[in-house]
């Protein structure tokens, strides 16, 4: 598997990462090197082996349905570049 320049441009856009046109070529090369390295795993026969999701034998820990958090709108919006009456304020987005 490998990616081309257009794919890299698209992925960057989807991830909202600004990337200059001249950076695309070297980035494509780097990504393809990484993909080729990971592809070595294809040599292993994994038929019938479920994907490993954790290195420890564990399942999801669950918590009780209790209100233990929240109530601090000031802290939540503290780092926002713009706030308005308890809301985050962003440039107008309309559908």
């Amino acid at each position, binding site marked *: 598997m490998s990616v081309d320049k257009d794919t890299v441009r*698209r992925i960057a*856009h*989807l*991830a*909202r990462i600004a990337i200059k046109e001249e950076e695309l070529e070297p980035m494509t090369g780097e990504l393809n090197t990484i993909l080729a390295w990971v592809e070595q795993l294809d040599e292993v026969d994994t038929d019938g082996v479920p*994907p490993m*999701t*954790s290195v420890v034998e*564990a*399942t*999801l*820990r*669950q*918590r*009780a*349905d*209790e*209100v*233990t*958090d*929240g*109530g*601090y*709108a000031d*802290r*939540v*919006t503290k780092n926002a570049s*713009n706030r*308005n*009456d*308890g*809301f*985050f*304020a*962003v*440039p*107008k*987005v*309309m*559908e």
Partner: protein
Amino acid sequence: MSEEKSNLIKGNTGDWEVVIGLEIHAQVSSNSKLFSGAATQFGAEPNSQVSLVDAAMPGMLPVINQYCVEQAVKTGLGLGAKINRVSVFDRKNYFYPDLPQGYQISQFKQPIVGEGEVIVDLADGTSVIVGIERLHLEQDAGKSIHDLHPKQSLVDLNRSGIALMEIVSRPDLRSSEQAGAYMRKVRTIVRYLGTCDGNMEQGSMRADVNVSVRKPGDELGTRCEMKNINSIRFIQQSIEYEARRQIEVIENGGVIEQQTRLFDSKNGETRPMRSKEEAHDYRYFPDPDLLPLALDEAWIDDLKAKLPELPDDKKARYISDFGLSPYDASVLVSERERADFFEAVASGRDAKLSANWVTGSLFAALKKEGVSIHDSKVSASDLGELIDLISDQTISGRIAKDVFELMFESGRPPREIVEEQGLTQVTDTGAIESEIDKIIAANPDKVEQVKEKPRMMGWFVGQVMQATGGKANPQVVNEILQKKLGH
């Protein structure tokens, strides 16, 4: 003589079939969010129910709410669906201001609930079976408000991270009526189970509606999706409009483009949303913050054993045990509160008579006043007492209607009204007889007529009832009249 009702839509080139599938988002009725301990109450101050997890602050980790898992499983069981012992949470990646993580935690390849089916009863007495493809748990997004400021959109994350159950149907629906009935049925089921309050105005339940059209027997057409509709009436309107629009496009030589459309409830139209380019490339992958969710078989069995009686079972029981008509049974089970009310009235009484009073006088009065059964001034025990007063002949059925009106207005118990207004039925044969004698003496011509025309007897009954203010026991009146005037 059943007239086959056709769901086909007439076009210029022949009949068209509309194919509909619904993705219902049902908010889990939990105190706290799916992955954080922030509250879920509706209508709180902006951003006051947001934890640092919901705001996606760096380093915060999600921990799943056990109660939400339980509600998803219960709902799955209520939909007759397969519960998956192991399910996986994935990240669905997209950018929007009300999605601080830049992804929604959802379930993609391995949802918590698999295939099931729902039986949907229609107004004409027929029913359709709607396949359920899956139910998965996911986070809700925040809310953007666009009309409070001329240049800004304001973002409130209170809803961000609230647990949603997305219930995906197969494209088994063939008309707007069926879609509305399906939505109502799913709402009834989650309300019976108590897993979602089903409150569509507050957005606890909303649907994405997929619509396509085809000539009967053809392959499925290209579908359009109408997002986030929060009323059954709007769901139906959007389907009607969208089906017509697609037929028109195709018949004029055009092609339907797969797209997401917005339903505008002001003019009843759908229009394309400004398409976010590549919006559908969500690049799902398993959320590395969350291990697979494993459920214990014994725990699932225990939940199954504790499920309340569901509407389909209740309806079947009302028909077989109480002898109710399928229609009355459907009306009663359509809301759990109605069914509970009916069962309280019918307890120890004639079930059919009870059903008649509940679905007849009570529902008519509630509908007229626009009141829900929950707020009815007439309690189940008072309505039961009214029925007792008829059964033991204290009052006549006719007087009972008047008493009911007074009960509905005032909320007072029937016995009090009957006593205060002196409405007790006269069963005293002597008193009735003397009234009858007076009427016979005053109307010799009518007495002659009744000899020729036995139907004239009704006139005498009417006179006696009028003279006694409707309180005479009709059976006693009939008996005496027959004795005096009959042949």
